[in-house]
């Protein structure tokens, strides 16, 4: 059985822009997998999804979805995919039920089948009572449910979700996460983009971290977390003072420290400095680190142990926070 998605050396350059929006990306998504593209805004995630869903033409490279080339076999690709977009693009001229049944009709689902499927989806997603209203009367969370239902109306093999929970309230977000997992358990392959680490960690079996149009790493969440040397880190924030100079070296020489990274002047005030100290046992270093800082005459603002999360992995790889 072939993979659900195969992307090879994909490049997309938009006219009038310097640099490539997607810059030589390759990855595969296996059938039945939830795969995450994780990265900050502007990393190239949405463009990658655009290529895979046939709305963006690749500049070079190739991509196959469900065994069909996205550039040359668009009809076959479109037949097999569903897209849950970043923004509400529901047809405002139609009633909610019609949005579902017409979507299925576009995809050639026979009438009896599409009416039955619309019935059950509307009921399960709690939309049945309001199925004859137009979408303008719906809240954001409700509209999202309609988009979920619409995506499921034509038996897709691969579902694309572009930052699906971006503008949702916490309850709707949880609701969608459960739905995504339930669909995956039924065998649907899912590719989702997000800049929410928690979301990626929770849902995805494998993750590719993207930045500036490139994939930095691509692995299971567990393996990605092992990228952080020693597994965890200590974050220290101090107020700026003369003792700051040389502090990094002093921290580095502490026993058990694997690597020290200066995070620049982050923190609450402008005149602070922050460091990230990677170690096998970061918790045990709290004492020595505090001593090193106070010994240099510095005032500590904050010190905390960071367990390995995807966010930590991202910061480790790029040296900056995700948002």
């Amino acid at each position: 059985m072939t993979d659900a998605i195969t992307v090879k050396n994909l490049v997309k350059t938009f006219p009038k822009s310097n640099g490539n929006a997607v810059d030589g990306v390759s990855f595969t998504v296996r059938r039945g997998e939830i795969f995450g593209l994780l990265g900050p805004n502007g990393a190239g995630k949405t463009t990658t999804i655009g290529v895979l869903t046939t709305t963006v033409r690749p500049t070079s490279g190739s991509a196959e979805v469900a065994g069909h080339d996205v550039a040359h076999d668009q009809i076959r690709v479109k037949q097999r995919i569903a897209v849950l977009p970043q923004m509400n693009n529901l047809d405002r001229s139609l009633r909610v039920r019609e949005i579902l049944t017409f979507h299925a009709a576009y995809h050639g689902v026979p009438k009896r089948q599409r009416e039955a499927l619309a019935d059950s989806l509307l009921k399960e997603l709690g939309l049945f009572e309001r199925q004859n209203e137009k979408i303008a009367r719906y809240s954001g969370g409700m509209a999202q449910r309609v988009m979920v239902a619409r995506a499921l109306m034509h038996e897709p093999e691969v579902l694309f979700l572009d930052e699906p929970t971006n503008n949702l309230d916490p309850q709707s977000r949880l609701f969608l996460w459960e739905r995504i997992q339930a669909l995956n358990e039924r065998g649907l392959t899912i590719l989702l983009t997000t800049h929410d680490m928690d979301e990626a960690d929770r849902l995805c079996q494998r993750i590719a971290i993207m930045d500036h149009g490139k994939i930095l790493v691509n692995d299971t969440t567990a393996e990605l977390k092992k990228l952080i040397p020693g597994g965890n880190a200590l974050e220290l924030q101090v107020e700026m003072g003369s003792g700051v100079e040389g502090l990094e070296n002093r921290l580095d020489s502490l026993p058990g420290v694997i690597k020290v990274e200066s995070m620049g002047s982050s923190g609450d005030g402008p005149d602070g400095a922050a460091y990230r100290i990677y170690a096998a046992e970061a918790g045990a270093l709290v004492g020595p680190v505090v001593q090193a800082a106070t010994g240099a005459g510095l005032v500590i603002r904050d010190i905390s142990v960071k367990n390995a999360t995807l966010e930590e992995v991202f910061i480790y790889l790029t040296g900056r926070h995700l948002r």
Partner: protein
Amino acid sequence: MSTHSLSAAPVTARREVSQFRLAINAVRAIAQRDLVVTAREIVQFLLQAMIQPLFFLFIFGKVLPGIGLAAHGFAALLLPGIVSLSGLLAAIQGVTLPLVLDLGFAREIDDRLLAPLPVWMVAAEKVLFGTLRGAFAGACIFPMALVILGPDFSVRTDRIGMLVLMVLLTGATGATIGMLIGTIVRAEFISLMFALIFTPLIFTGCTYYPWAALEHIRWFQILTLANPLTYCSEGLRYAMVKSGGGMAFPTLDIRVVIAALLVGIGACFYLGLRMFLKRVIS
């Protein structure tokens, strides 16, 4: 978790339908969607398309000749112009306004673009639907004119085939112009566009006067040839106006009319389609 029951038919072996069948199915469903949406606002549509011609026919076809300010028989020359104007405008509006919404911020067209059909067919369906909408509006003028003009209603019946063709060509002209406007003009400028385009279009399109009568204002007569509405009006005049006293009523040569309209439709469709593809695929 109760959510495990989520519907969506299981991913089974897919029925292999030919791509052609898939595309035809999709176009048909999209046209059906347009039909449902249009049928739901049919009253609005008729009001929008009929109010202006109703007053034009009444004032210019009935009142002015009645008080001696227009020649008797003017109504017969005016009616083809009113049919062509109404058909053209209804077709333009029927394509432009939905297209601006479709391509606008919310991108409501996405669902149709992701249907299993070539993207150009989505645009072609819009043009086809706009054509029929324009032709329908043009056809609606006839019963209305019969009521308003009464005994002055006069249409020759020996060129019905040509009349049908001209009504359809008028619709197609409007629909392709509509696609061009809808893909070029941004939503915030659309009402300005209507004012800038429609007023000159209406008054230089030989709607209220036959082209041949302009021979004494030669420069204006030549200018009107740049307006597609001129060819629609003249073609309809050819198909509708009875010849008086054994003399054929002089219009633009019907072969020129048809050729010009076909070229115009082709050119607008080509340009509109290119713009459309540019807007929906990056």
